[in-house]
């Protein structure tokens, strides 16, 4: 019993992580307080990092935790702490679009699940690759996709300039 469990530990952990990530995502829809939603999202991201680690793409797992949890979500948590919790938007969870949103959710999940379960069989059965290492990723990234890499730096610069412009526009209106 224990031996078979240990032999399939990878698969077992994958299922556990997938279940936990889904539970965190579902909690995000249900919870009321923005801080709790942020913590649910952080747990989902960490479990996704665990899944990436199990798949063998360790550098993606590291960057998932570093960039998403370490930068994006810390920023989000700071902003939540800045804002007023007596806001009526916090007390009432759902907007008027609850029913159309649920219908669209059901349709989308139906179509995607149908596609995953029926339209994919041949490709998924041939899976057997052991993933790839950092070396293949780095050479692919900086040989074939160097232009995209440079364009991201332009995008980040534009984002910084735009953030400063937005802040200054707001300050001028208030002052």
């Amino acid at each position, binding site marked *: 019993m224990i031996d078979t469990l240990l032999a399939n530990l990878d698969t077992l952990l*994958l299922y556990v992580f997938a279940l936990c990530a*889904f539970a965190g*995502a*579902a909690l*995000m*829809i249900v919870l009321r307080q*923005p801080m709790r939603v942020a913590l649910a999202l952080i747990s*989902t*991201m960490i479990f*996704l990092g665990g899944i*990436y680690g199990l*798949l063998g*793409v360790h550098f*993606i797992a590291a960057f*998932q935790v570093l*960039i998403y949890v370490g930068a*994006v979500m810390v920023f*989000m948590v700071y*902003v*939540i702490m800045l*804002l*007023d919790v007596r806001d*009526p*938007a916090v007390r009432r*969870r*759902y*907007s008027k*679009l*609850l029913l159309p949103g*649920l219908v*669209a*959710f059901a349709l*989308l*999940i139906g179509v*995607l*699940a149908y596609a995953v*379960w029926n339209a*994919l069989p041949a*490709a*998924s*059965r041939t*899976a057997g690759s*052991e*993933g*790839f290492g950092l070396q*293949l*990723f780095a050479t*692919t*990234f900086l040989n074939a*996709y160097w232009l*995209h890499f440079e364009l*991201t730096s332009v*995008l*980040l610069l*534009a*984002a910084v300039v735009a*953030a400063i412009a*937005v802040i200054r526009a*707001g300050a001028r209106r*208030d002052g």
Partner: protein
Amino acid sequence: MDKVQLLLTLAAALFALGLLGVTVRRNLLVMLMCMELALNGANLALVTFAHQMGEAVGAVLVFLIFVVAAAEIAIAIPIVLLLVRRKRTLDPGAYSDLRG
């Protein structure tokens, strides 16, 4: 259940839940977080395909999505703060007087 199918189903579920959150929640910050959830679902699908094919192209795309997500948050949060300073609420329904 096949591993690839499990992960793709999870990716689809994460994306759909993110879309549901953006549609039904009544809080601008929670809507932003649900957008991040949808991006994470797309990332998981890309990593799964990259792992299945043994090629690094999917991981390159995931990297670019990381950068786009960081830039998106860096722009969106100041805009949300300015909106809150104007009307003292995070409810997107309060801003329906913005035409267009």
